[in-house]
């Protein structure tokens, strides 16, 4: 068999530490998927490095699950190849791919106790009893569920079930862990805890390559080394998490990741100065922002995050625009304001406000630092 770490005989002498140390990369090579005439994944080329967490994020129906299921082997690509490590898995059945999979509704086997669920993969592969016992103990400990081995899934809460589902996937020492919206069925508080737990899990198993599909940008921003943003069956953008957030390459990315404000501006001067800021005009205001090779006369978008806008200026917040205050929502630690700037709604999240808040309908200035902005090209489509 072509997947060494996963065959019945090898599973027993695999050195756990070795697997933990070195995961496999996942490579999509022009992978496309169609259901009949309906193309749901346009040729996709993407690499997930060994030990990397890639979050695939995008609106519902954008093809995230399809891409994940193509790696797992449940969707046959219409074209292209998928490689895991050195192995081309495109033609391998799912049970020979050496993966772990966790789905949104957990899918714990209801007729098996927690320990039998976790042991399932190793038993199916014919591992020996001692190894199974040890791995089950190990995996349950990793997710903090050691005390629940004898329970049935229905005797567990949603969060506990999802931990067991993760333990079940980890017990086979997968080369790649596939998570499809693993936290979507949980409520907000538990979801936050689980995000932290998954982050910790990856610190404990740094070699584990993870493909994490979600529509929740917070999960993606918290967990991922890199993010791929999906839209209509294509990768709209792909890059290191912080960079994608700070310098979104297009409007869709800027809006989907962190709901950025995008102001239509006209470039007056390309990158200049020690910091390489470009200058652009919005109405009468002349603004500076991080450039992306724009030329004078280009029409583009100035991206500024709600938390980077301030009602008060200082020597750093040198950009100034004015808008009409439309809405004020006080939320305790944050106050959300919506202003109208030249017909574009602009959201502001402020932690500190002037002592006397301006009234709705009044015209107020907004300040922001050139370093917090970036110029973003308008999307080609839509």
């Amino acid at each position, binding site marked *: 068999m072509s997947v060494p770490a996963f065959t019945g005989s090898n599973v027993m002498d695999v050195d756990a530490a070795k697997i933990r140390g070195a995961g496999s990369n996942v490579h999509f090579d022009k992978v496309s998927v169609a259901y009949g005439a309906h193309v749901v994944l346009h040729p996709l080329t993407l690499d997930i490095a060994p030990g990397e967490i890639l979050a695939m994020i995008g609106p519902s129906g954008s093809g995230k699950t399809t891409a994940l299921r193509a790696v797992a082997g*449940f969707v046959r690509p219409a074209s292209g190849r998928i490689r895991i490590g050195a192995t081309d898995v495109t033609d391998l059945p*799912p*049970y020979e791919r050496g993966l772990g999979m966790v789905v949104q509704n957990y*899918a714990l086997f209801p007729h098996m106790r927690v320990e039998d669920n976790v042991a399932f993969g190793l038993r199916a592969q014919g591992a020996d009893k001692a190894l199974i016992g040890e791995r089950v103990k190990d995996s349950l400990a990793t997710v903090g569920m050691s005390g629940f081995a004898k329970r049935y899934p229905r005797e567990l809460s949603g969060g506990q079930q999802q931990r067991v589902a993760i333990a079940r996937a980890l017990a086979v020492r997968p080369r790649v862990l596939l998570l499809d919206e693993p936290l979507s069925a949980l409520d907000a508080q538990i979801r936050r805890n689980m995000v932290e737990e998954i982050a910790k899990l990856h610190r404990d198993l740094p070699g584990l390559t993870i493909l994490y599909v979600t529509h929740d940008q917070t999960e993606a921003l918290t967990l991922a080394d890199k993010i791929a943003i999906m839209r209509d069956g294509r990768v709209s953008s792909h890059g290191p998490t912080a960079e994608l957030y700070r310098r979104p390459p297009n409007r869709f990315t800027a809006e989907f990741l962190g709901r950025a404000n995008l102001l239509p501006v006209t470039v007056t001067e390309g990158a200049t100065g020690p910091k390489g800021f470009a200058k652009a005009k919005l109405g009468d205001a002349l603004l500076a922002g991080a450039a992306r090779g724009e030329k004078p006369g280009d029409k583009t978008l100035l991206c500024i995050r709600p938390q980077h806008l301030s009602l008060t200026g200082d020597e750093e917040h040198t950009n100034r625009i004015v808008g009409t205050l439309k809405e004020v929502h006080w939320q305790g630690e944050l106050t959300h304001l919506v202003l109208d700037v030249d017909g574009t709604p602009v959201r502001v999240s402020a932690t500190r406000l002037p002592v006397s808040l301006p009234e709705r309908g009044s015209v107020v200035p907004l300040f922001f630092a050139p370093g917090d902005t970036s110029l973003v090209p308008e999307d080609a489509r839509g």
Partner: protein
Amino acid sequence: MLVWSRPGRIVLWLVFALLFSVLFLAPLAVILLSSLADQWNGVLPSGLTTEHYSDVVQGAAWKAVKASLVTGFLAGAVALVSGTWAALALRIQDATLARVLGVLFFIPSAVPSVSVGLGLLVAFSHPPLLLNGTIAIVMAAHFVLISAFTFGNVSAGLARLSPDFEQVASSLGARPAYRLRHVTLPLLAPYLVAAFGLSFALSMGELGATVMVYPPGWVTLPVSIFSLTDRGDVFAGAALTMVLVAVTLILLLGLERVTGRQARS
């Protein structure tokens, strides 16, 4: 319930109780009473007796019970296996083919059972397949008539099974046979038991096709009841009917207990 007012609900319950007793309980009660009746000329029997029961027990009753049970179990088991197999196999075919084959499976249940019996009789009265006068032809008739129901039940169960279970099992390294044995079939178990119970009950009550094909020495309960009443021995027929009802009920309740325990565990 759609009716909320208290009088409304009482009226609904009364209507339900009336329909239930007239359509359901009354015939059974009449049969029960007949099976115990000495003479029955007026509104009620003139006296009660257990004579009919001792008659049928001394007569052909045990042989008929045995013939019915064996037929029901065997035909039910074969129908369960083939219906499950068909449902599992059709699931991996493309949707159109699956629909066409699914409809084919249901054809026998749309044909009158007498015609099914007649068809089998005609078809298997000549070499090379000479089944006429054997027990096998009774089994075949029952199998043809009940397999559509096992297939339907198991298909419905499969359709309700989330594909996630089997996919997770595969991704963990389970080959198809292991997955079938340890995931799919256990999750289907309630539907399998229900399918078997239904086919068994259908087989126990089957008359139309059996009458056409049964060989001497393999007279099922419904056939015995039919010939007893046909001869005018209504009270004995009623006694045998009660035996049929009791045997079927006991078995179905037994199955129910098994699944009930399984669902709880």
